[in-house]
């Protein structure tokens, strides 16, 4: 039980680390450009959780002053992450647009095939 308790106490961080590492792995290991972007999104999502989970206190309410509630959660991380999500969406949209253009120019979105095509050009 003692071995497990730090795991259970910090389970949110383990989820974050798992998402982060698997996202980065997909970015590095996949040659398909759309899959790379999916990995990138996964990686970014882990950071959203990293901000959000410490801001929440169990039993806490939104910080509206009321004599019935004494414990408040921190609302700032939500606002920050709302911005980060917008940035993330913009990044992925731009990434997908670039992949579209790459597909038009090269006829493929597999990295190794594109590099092979480039080597032939030289």
């Amino acid at each position, binding site marked *: 039980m003692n071995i497990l308790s730090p795991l259970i106490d910090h389970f949110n961080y383990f989820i974050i680390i798992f998402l982060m590492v698997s996202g*980065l792995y997909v*970015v590095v290991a996949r040659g398909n*450009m759309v899959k*790379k972007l999916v990995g*990138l999104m996964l*990686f*970014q999502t882990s*950071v959203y959780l*990293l*901000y959000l989970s*410490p801001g929440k206190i169990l039993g806490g309410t939104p910080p509206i002053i009321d004599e019935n509630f004494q414990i408040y959660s921190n609302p700032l*991380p939500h606002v*920050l992450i709302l*911005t*980060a999500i917008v*940035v993330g969406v*913009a*990044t992925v949209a*731009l*990434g997908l647009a*670039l*992949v579209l*253009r*790459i597909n038009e*120019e*090269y006829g493929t979105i597999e990295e190794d095939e*594109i590099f092979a095509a*480039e080597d032939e050009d030289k």
Partner: protein
Amino acid sequence: MISSNLPALQVVLPLLGAVLTALVRRGQIAWFIALVVSWTMPMIAFALLKQVLAEGVVSYALGGWAPPLGIEYRVDLVSAYILILVSLMGALVVSYAPRSVASEIAPERQAWFYTMYLLCMCGLLGIAITGDAFNAFVFLEVSSLSTYVLIALGRDRRAILSAYQYLIVGTIGATFYVLGVGLLYVMTGSLNLADIAGRIGDIDNIRPLLAALAFITVGISLKVALFPVHLWLPNAYAFAPSVVTAFLASTATKVAIYLLLRYLFSIFGVVFVFRDLPVTEILITLSVAAMIIASVVAVFQANVKRMLAYSSVAQIGYITLGIALATQTGLTGGIVHIFNHAVMKAALFMAIGCVVFRTGAVKIEDIAGIGRHMPLTMGAFVIAGLALIGVPGTVGFVSKYYLVAAALEKGWWWLAAIIVISSLIAVVYVGRVIEVAWFRDPGAAIRAAREPPLEMLVFTWILTAAIVVLGFDTELTAGIAGRAAEVLLTGMK
């Protein structure tokens, strides 16, 4: 009214300009808007520098919300220095730009080009001026996203490919940065940089701080193009439109270095980073590797823009070397080289932009003998190239003088020797272009080449003149750099 809102105007004007250029949709008018905004920026930056010199740090509460709760725009000597650099380079590049842009970018995309350029400008100035960690992330992404688009506008299809690769690397870098900021926020409960700097000393459990430092340093290093993570840079510079390369080479990496300086010195502090941790050793190793390896790779490039891009990686090595030494002289050398390298690389890329405009050639073998037909353009290239090597009388010498002096102060003769060796390799790669351009017989395509249009030539030569003038009169650059180094070494209190 205006003078008290200068920090906000520095960022808001390019943002408004970007919206306007997007609305007009006409290349010529968009250029004019960009020109007006771009020349207003250095005026604001100089006014801010004047305020900083007279009254000390300028703090501006955005929207009237007092820091540390609200977002603070904070201008000290270091940020004023970077603001001037970025805005001045932007103004010069955009004045040079119109015909080069018209020749390299499709007419229906020219207005969008200026939109993206202004957004990028807004992001870069924002990073330099903000005093808020998360706000810096947002500006980082504003500048990065517009940079990806600017690179993708290149004529070659490989431009899109390099934009995509930069997007992946850049996003990982920015996400690492925001991860580090998240850890700092959890530990200190603040996002205001000065506030974090004040609270960071009270933290007993330093393990999250180490993680934050690691994430932030690696994240920004990706943007700086520090040696092992520089691979996005050569392709991006080589295939982007000439104007974009000149702008990015002189501003984007420099602003990232500013952010790195901010975190290493002002937030985490010299003692924590450089005395308790082996950052000096790591950073010197990477810098030396960049100076030698990237220079050697530059020697073997066939494409002039790619060669200059590898040389940029090497030159960034000099800057980080100065940072790694973390002494007054070393840091002065690093900071002054931020400015000096920006000036000479902009001049080089502008000169090459003129060559591309007239001949379309970027391969070294294709520009054989061009010096005889475009003597003024290639003359600028030669002077800027000499500055890259570090010949006395140019700005390159000033930076290297400080760096060598800093190495000798520490008694590190080998480091001074490495700086000299790296300069000798620069002689080889600059010399190769000069030899081909001036001493070979021109081909048919080159024989038809003439000097570029007046404004392109004039702005290339303004920068070239600055290389020589600032090489003799070091008061403006090295003087301010020295005081900026003092500000950084004393911390943000």
